[in-house]
């Protein structure tokens, strides 16, 4: 399946915007991604292996946090994952 990498993390995928990774579930695809591109791992996951709070991952048009199977959700070759860090802020400190 295709995984779309956000601009700041392309430094860890050899500059690629889209990488092709095989796997049966979201979790398996993540494992394959981080073994192929090990430097990306710390930017996506905390030390205990949880997805960082500001990193959003969409399976097609669904946030994986809200999928029934979460990261165990089954995927096919035609699915697409999009990694998208959050955009927020504001003048109030």
């Amino acid at each position, binding site marked *: 399946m295709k995984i*779309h990498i*956000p*601009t*700041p993390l392309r*430094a860890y995928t050899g500059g690629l*915007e*889209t990488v092709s990774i095989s796997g049966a579930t979201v979790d398996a695809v993540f494992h394959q991604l981080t073994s192929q591109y090990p430097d990306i791992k*710390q*930017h996506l996951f905390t030390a205990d292996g949880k997805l960082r709070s*500001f*990193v*959003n991952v*969409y399976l097609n*048009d669904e*946030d994986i946090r809200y999928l029934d199977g979460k990261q165990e959700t089954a995927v096919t070759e035609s699915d697409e994952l*999009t990694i*998208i*860090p*959050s*955009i*927020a*802020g*504001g*003048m*109030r*400190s």
Partner: protein
Amino acid sequence: MLRIEYADYEALRAHGEETYPNECCGVLLGKNVLGQGDGTAGANHVQQIVRAGNTRTDSAHNRYNIAPQELVKIQRQARGLGLDIVGFYHSHPDHPARWSATDFAEAHWLGCSYIITSVEHGKAATTNSFLLVGTAEDDKRFEDEAIEIMIAHSIPESGAHNQKGQA
């Protein structure tokens, strides 16, 4: 350095006037052009701006958030155009065009430009850009970034008619 066409620059400032007294927000699409190897830093060249909705309706006058779902669509749009997300913009109603502690804590796109426009009594005042530099969350920082405003698209980039503007 951030390079942006005058029309886009004016459009993002006008967006802040339209949403006043609330904060506006949007995404900058373009290309990051690497330095020339002679010591010059890379630059984010903006080729299109995309307005986004502010989901912080609970506190829109001093907070902004772009829905991730909308960002996924904007990233898809960028991909279709052969462009990348190179930055973001938002406004500070009746507040200086400087990044706040919240802006910094919630900034995660290293290498991207964060434009802030102060809107005073409904009129866009100062516009500044800040480049998020560093290699990870624990060493990130904002650097002041010069804004080069391109007056006319058809004039070559090195043309003498271009006006350099650092807001």
